[in-house]
């Protein structure tokens, strides 16, 4: 089954960071999800490995919501892969 970038990012948040699935929405900020600055570094590491695109530190710092992160990843060429 193919999955969207949003779904894959959601999976990373649930599996790697223990975020509760019902807290995840495009409008949720990383703060809402209890992710701090180091979590964001790790999130970008995981995204890099899972989706093959790199989020630079400055970009990670500027991310407001999960929707922003998904858009950034899509703009950088992350494609929905096999989920």
């Amino acid at each position: 089954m193919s999955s969207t970038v949003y779904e894959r990012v959601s999976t990373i948040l649930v599996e790697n960071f223990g975020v509760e699935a019902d807290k995840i929405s495009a409008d949720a900020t990383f703060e809402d999800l209890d992710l701090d600055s180091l979590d964001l570094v790790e999130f970008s590491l995981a995204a890099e490995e899972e989706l093959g695109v790199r989020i630079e530190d400055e970009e990670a710092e500027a991310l407001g919501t999960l929707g922003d992160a998904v858009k950034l990843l899509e703009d950088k060429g992350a494609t929905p892969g096999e989920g």
Partner: protein
Amino acid sequence: MTAAVVEGLGTALPPRRVTNDDLAQVLDTSDEWIRTRTGIVARRMVDDGVVTGDLAVEAGERALKSAGGQGADAVIVATTTPDQPLPNTAAGVAERLGLAPAAALDLNTACAGFPYALATGAGLLTAGAASRVLVIGAETLTRFLDPGDRSTAVLFGDGAGALVLRLGDADDPGAVGPFDLGSDGSAAEILTLSAGGSRLPPHRDDLADDDKYLKMDGREVYRHAVRRMAESLEALAQRAGLDVADLDGVYAHQANSRIIEAVADRLGLPRERCPVTIAEHANTSAASIPLALAAAPPRPGDRVALVAFGGGLAWGSALVRWPEVTPG
């Protein structure tokens, strides 16, 4: 097969304890921020006039005592903060420990110093250049911190730790090896202490603060540290014919509890197998692994991996079959 074998452990910490709250009085930071981002509660700091060699002598003396008091004919001091560029720190340490004319060398792979020094010590033994090696990690990094830089001032502490290695057999309790060592000079700029070498000699009067103090890009260091330490542990296990899951303990360089947890999670290792002893020591660079071994000792017979990552970039890991050893 011959191998280096651990037979003694010793550590040293300066008496002055500085808490997060102490630092929060002079810096825009807080105990809560430091604890949640790093796991650090307090650090030890040397007073003016105390040098790395002083801590190295204290830890070395205890390690030699722990090993049974038979001395050593080689001394390695892994340090990023030597007493001075010349002479090296190790020769003075050897002299003060009554070990002269032992072979004595400093080794600088920053926070990755201890696995590198163990591999070097093992090499001296198996090459027949020494019969007993005192391997010391010793640092006084707080002497090189910008007191106004909250991104580094809260992270580091001073200390020393040492192991004594003798030549033995790969089947002996305490046998060390295999090793995995690596470097990546392309990311040199993420952890620097620039002044004092040939690029910026100490006599220059135009040194900027960024040159005089330790500077670190914390996010990049975090990113590389997690990845490189996990990869090094995988390579080490493979070299030893083991699965990472077979490791009874992973003693990682204590730079940040979050890095250690991330490495454990990445490798699917239970976090309790990866001791975190950073709370009272902060990051003591090349000294952190022996300090961790003394603070949360492995059980005799445990197969433990020691793994570290530091500026350079440099990283390394070593496998040890932990022996019966009482810290000196």
